[in-house]
């Protein structure tokens, strides 16, 4: 007779013996034996002294479970967690009492079992991904042999994948726990193996390594991403991973080299590139300013200019003419350049913002200061222009230009008159915008400031 508190021992053939577990648990449910009274024993492990063997199956217990439970249990049972048989039993008992239980993924037990199944599924997936066959010659023909170390007891369950894919090959997968062999007709099982039992190379691996190294783009290192999906524990059995450290070490140097080559030896098509860039800028809609302005006012000047001047934005006259620095401020700028000994024909001039921003007052369009967002949106063009022209010196005229070049607010009075380093490299100078001079009401102050402006330009050109 079964005592209510008796322990029962159930023997399973193997760690992944789902059928044995199902039979044992059916009998336990039929006999009303609680999960904590069952001792699960796998293979030839020594039995518990007080365990009571289950009576021979006396007819299947009459209950059904949802298909989803069977699928979940088939996966979870392959885990290495020693509690998995009891956890699944407990889950089954609770499921029989509450049929919708599996939908409740927030239930701690459901979550734990699903966690086991998820880890098993990942292990199965990684085995399909990372098994590497090596070809060996045998009298009967070629055989493809792999050595793999799974985390869980997944090898038998996973065999069907390799059968579906490689049925026309003869192959073996060796693992520490079990080996499986396919001879083209039947799948055979053998004892566990060691790495030494597997072949130690394959000539095609050199080709594969070449491919791995060549397909890697050194301009984009994302080592964390790689490690997340291909953890180091798998590396020792994958021929290509030996290359990883040297690829990473060389990557930054290779990218810097490419950028440097492009910088110092540009293609011979700079003129064409500039014209194409200007044409693209004509349809710029990166910020809303294009809606009311007449046209994009792009920079102009020789593309091999040694000095590049950046103003604020086109004014009323520039907007209509489509050229920078042609209005009153431009004329003042021309005069100052001449006094500073700079030939206007040798410099490249452009603006931080390339569309006219204004407020309509009656018939007049009054200049309005571009905001930080508009400056940021337009930076893209300045960067392209600077990349093409590659000036020795860039001169920011006014706060807007300085903000565009440095990516932050800059105090002109503190920074003017000396060489500064640009964030992306390159030398920059900062001075006031010529329109500032036009706005000064006091003629003496205007003359003084004009002299300082000319001095700044001189310093930038001749220092």
């Amino acid at each position, binding site marked *: 007779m079964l005592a209510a508190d008796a322990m029962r021992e159930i023997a399973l053939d193997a760690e992944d013996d789902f059928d044995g577990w199902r039979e044992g648990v059916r009998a336990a449910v039929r006999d009303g034996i609680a999960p904590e009274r069952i001792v699960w024993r796998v293979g030839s492990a020594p039995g518990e002294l007080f365990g009571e063997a289950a009576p021979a199956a006396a007819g299947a217990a009459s209950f059904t479970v949802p298909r989803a439970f069977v699928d979940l249990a088939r996966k979870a049972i392959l885990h290495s967690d020693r509690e998995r048989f009891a956890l699944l039993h407990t889950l089954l008992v609770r499921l029989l009492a509450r049929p919708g239980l599996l939908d409740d993924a927030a239930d701690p037990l459901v979550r734990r079992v699903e966690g086991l199944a998820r880890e098993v599924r990942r292990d199965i997936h990684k085995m399909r991904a990372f098994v590497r066959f090596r070809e060996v010659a045998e009298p009967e023909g070629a055989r493809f042999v792999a050595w793999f170390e799974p985390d869980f007891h997944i090898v038998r369950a996973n065999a069907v994948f390799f059968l579906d894919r490689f049925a026309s090959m003869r192959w073996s997968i060796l693992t520490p726990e079990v080996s499986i062999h396919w001879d083209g007709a039947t799948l055979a099982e053998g004892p566990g193996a060691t790495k030494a039992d597997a072949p130690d190379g394959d000539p095609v691996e050199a080709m594969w390594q070449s491919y791995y190294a060549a397909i890697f783009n050194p301009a*984009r290192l994302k080592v964390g991403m790689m490690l997340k999906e291909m953890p180091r524990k798998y590396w020792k059995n994958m021929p290509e991973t030996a290359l990883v450290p040297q690829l*990473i070490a060389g990557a930054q140097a290779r990218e810097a080299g490419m950028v440097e080559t492009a910088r110092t030896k540009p293609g011979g098509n700079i003129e064409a590139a500039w014209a194409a860039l200007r044409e693209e800028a004509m349809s710029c809609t990166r*910020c809303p300013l294009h809606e009311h302005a007449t046209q994009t006012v792009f920079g102009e000047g020789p593309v091999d200019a040694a000095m590049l001047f950046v103003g604020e934005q086109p004014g009323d006259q520039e907007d209509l003419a489509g050229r920078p620095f042609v209005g009153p401020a431009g004329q003042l700028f021309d005069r100052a350049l001449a006094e500073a000994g700079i030939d206007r024909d040798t410099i490249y001039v452009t603006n931080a913002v390339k569309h006219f921003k204004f407020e309509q007052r009656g018939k007049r369009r009054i200049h309005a200061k571009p905001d930080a967002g508009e400056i940021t949106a337009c930076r893209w063009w300045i960067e392209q222009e600077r990349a093409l022209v590659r000036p020795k010196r860039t001169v920011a005229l006014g706060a807007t230009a300085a903000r565009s070049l440095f990516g932050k607010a800059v105090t002109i009075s503190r920074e003017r008159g000396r060489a500064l380093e640009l964030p992306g490299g390159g030398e920059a100078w900062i001075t006031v915008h010529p329109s500032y001079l036009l706005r000064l009401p006091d003629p003496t102050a205007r003359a003084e400031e004009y002299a300082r402006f000319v001095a700044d330009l001189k310093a930038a050109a001749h220092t």
Partner: protein
Amino acid sequence: MAQLDTRAKLEILADAAKYDASCASSGSIKRTSRDGKGIGSTDSGMGICHAYAPDGRCISLLKILLTNSCIFDCHYCINRKSSNVRRARFTAEEVVRLTLSFYRRNYIEGLFLSSGIIGSSNYTMEQIVEVARSLREDHEFRGYIHLKTIPDADPELIHQAGLHADRISINVELPTASGLKRLAPEKSQDRIEGAMAGMSDAILDTADARKHYKSAPRFAPAGQSTQMIVGADAATDRDIVSRAAGLYGSFGLKRVYYSAFSPIPDASAVLPLQRPPLMREHRLYQSDWLMRFYDFKPGEVADAADDNGMMRLDIDPKLAWALKFRGSFPVDVNIAPREMLLRVPGLGTRAVDKIVAARRGRRLSLADIGRLTVSLAKVRPFLIASDWRPVALADKADVPLPPPPAKQMELFG
């Protein structure tokens, strides 16, 4: 010696192919070679990544060009006519052999074949089709094949490609027509989209035919995809999102890939020198996800962008949207419709499905939600549970933000 030759070619022609982001082997039909004929299998679900490169990209397919010689002069392309790269060319048979020898060793799921244009578009396309034909017919190869179609190739050749391939694609290359004109002067947006429309029709027609005749041939069962380069033209993220939405809508694309422009050796002067941050590419993929899996309309994704039309780099677009539209939160996990749960930052589609299933049986508490999500701290400010209600958070200015992203370069020892 023959092998050395193949290896040298492989180095050149894989190097030349690496700027194509796509490597997916997903979404085809189930095939096996269990009958002992041929080799290979595919599944209808997700593909398998057989390795990862240090650039974080999945290596699923043997991704190569048939040749890197090209009569086109696209500035962003390392293989352009005016570039000084070493040129090489595989024979169709070499590609077939290489594919099979890699496949037998379980290195790959199949082949992704593209090519520079040599001779003419039709001649090039014929060579690509020949590789696929030989794999399928001479070797009964049942693994995955992705063929890149050549602009302006004869529709009949593209049809042949679709009969052998699981997936076909043609790249739109740049998000804007003006960008394409500047960077790929020989290509035309109209002709590229015309080819996409043709492939889209063929995919729909054959799928329809198979409903009536089981024996009707399949045409690219894994559909078509495309790629655009980010950061080489002036397009904002908002422009890119809206272009992608148009492509998904018009041509039924399976995927749009975004590839942050990266510096190439022997670059043309037309290109920017520096790459855009890789995070930008990531944010675009997240925006793409919002449209495809989270029921966001393209205009709503665009709303997540800042005033300049750029996605914030410091937070993901879903959180950016939520911060802009605080009035929509908090959301009650026990009664809110699925589409509102999908809007909660930090709740993925799977977590939402689990919440919807679990709440049928009982009311969910905050601890329950904690068991269904990765980060309770992230979702908590945005939702109401049976025992939790955020304190007037919708009006508070500061919702906890994730720590600043780690630097992209990592030490590696």
